[in-house]
């Protein structure tokens, strides 16, 4: 019962419905989480699976008025994964500093930009570093195999 209540009340908002945003939204929806996904272009929602059961919202998430209107400020988790690093940085910091969202995650292509919000407790995902790490792991494994 408590578990159900927690899940029912737990709001997750994803900004950006590109490949990553849509993939995250589909996964969370399949787990029956409460998901809202926002994109400035409604055609992007075509990437969502037919079984996606969350809310769709077309709008510019860098506009504070849009965020307030959609009550995005009540989210427990915000995930900023647009294809523009600077937009993700702006949205993540706005959600942390203005709306006090508990958990904010941003995807950054350029790891050097993380320093702009290092002290803000924003979690960051770097595809470049993840990929480099994985390649390194594969190479190490191959070396081990040769021994």
């Amino acid at each position, binding site marked *: 019962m408590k578990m159900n209540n927690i899940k029912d009340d737990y709001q997750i908002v994803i900004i950006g419905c590109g490949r990553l945003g849509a993939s995250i939204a589909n996964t969370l929806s399949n787990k029956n989480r409460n998901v809202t996904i926002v994109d400035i272009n409604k055609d992007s929602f075509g990437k969502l699976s037919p079984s996606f059961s969350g809310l769709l919202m077309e709008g510019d998430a860098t506009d504070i008025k849009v965020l307030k209107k959609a009550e995005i400020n009540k989210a427990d988790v915000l995930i900023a994964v647009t294809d523009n690093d*600077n937009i993700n940085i702006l949205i993540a910091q706005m959600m942390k500093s203005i709306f006090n969202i508990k958990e904010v995650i941003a995807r950054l292509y350029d790891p050097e930009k993380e320093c702009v919000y290092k002290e803000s407790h924003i979690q960051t995902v770097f595809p470049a570093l993840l990929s480099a790490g994985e390649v390194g792991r594969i190479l190490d494994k191959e070396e081990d195999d040769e021994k």
Partner: protein
Amino acid sequence: MKNKVLLIGGFHKATALANSLINRGYSVTIINENYADCMSLAENNQLKVIHGDGSKPYVLDDAEAYENEIAIALTQHDEDNLVICQLCKKKFGIKKTVSLVNDPKKTDFFHKMGIDSVVCAINTITGIIEQQAFMDEMATVLPIGQGNISIAEVPILQSAPSVGKKIWEIDLPKEVIIGCILRGESSMVPRGDTRLLSGDILVLISSKENHISAIRELTGR
């Protein structure tokens, strides 16, 4: 040793500002993303010009950002201006950062994020209009009392009924003035035969009573 200033983005604004700063004895570096604009800027021998995206750390590094006392972000995108200023301050140790902000609602947020000075594009121009229009024209055209004057930013979307029309063709209430049109990075004081384009932002000065009908006439909303 000259004081050094770094300007990022905003070709027209940066050009005007750079000329003013050079005349006042500053050493100026400009970063611009458009190659043709960079070639144009480079015709001024007193300017150092860097071609690239000023929100990328390696471009700021190429520009020796750390050598500057002031960095001024002038792009048309608030997210770019924010990241530029934060990188300049946190990564390159620039003491003072100034950012243009295109959306007035973000002004407080930008200050909160450590930007030292925030210049609102709309307020700047509105301030000029307030200064000139109130003194000269508003008192004559609108003898209602200053408390009833409204100044609004009205974006003209592609679907608006006024797109493509000349100002005299639009059925605006009499007591309404389009004080200024912001078009891209430039601004103009319109005349009756100025044609409105999609994407224009109008600075509208009107009495409170006519405010809503004027906006309806311009935008269809």
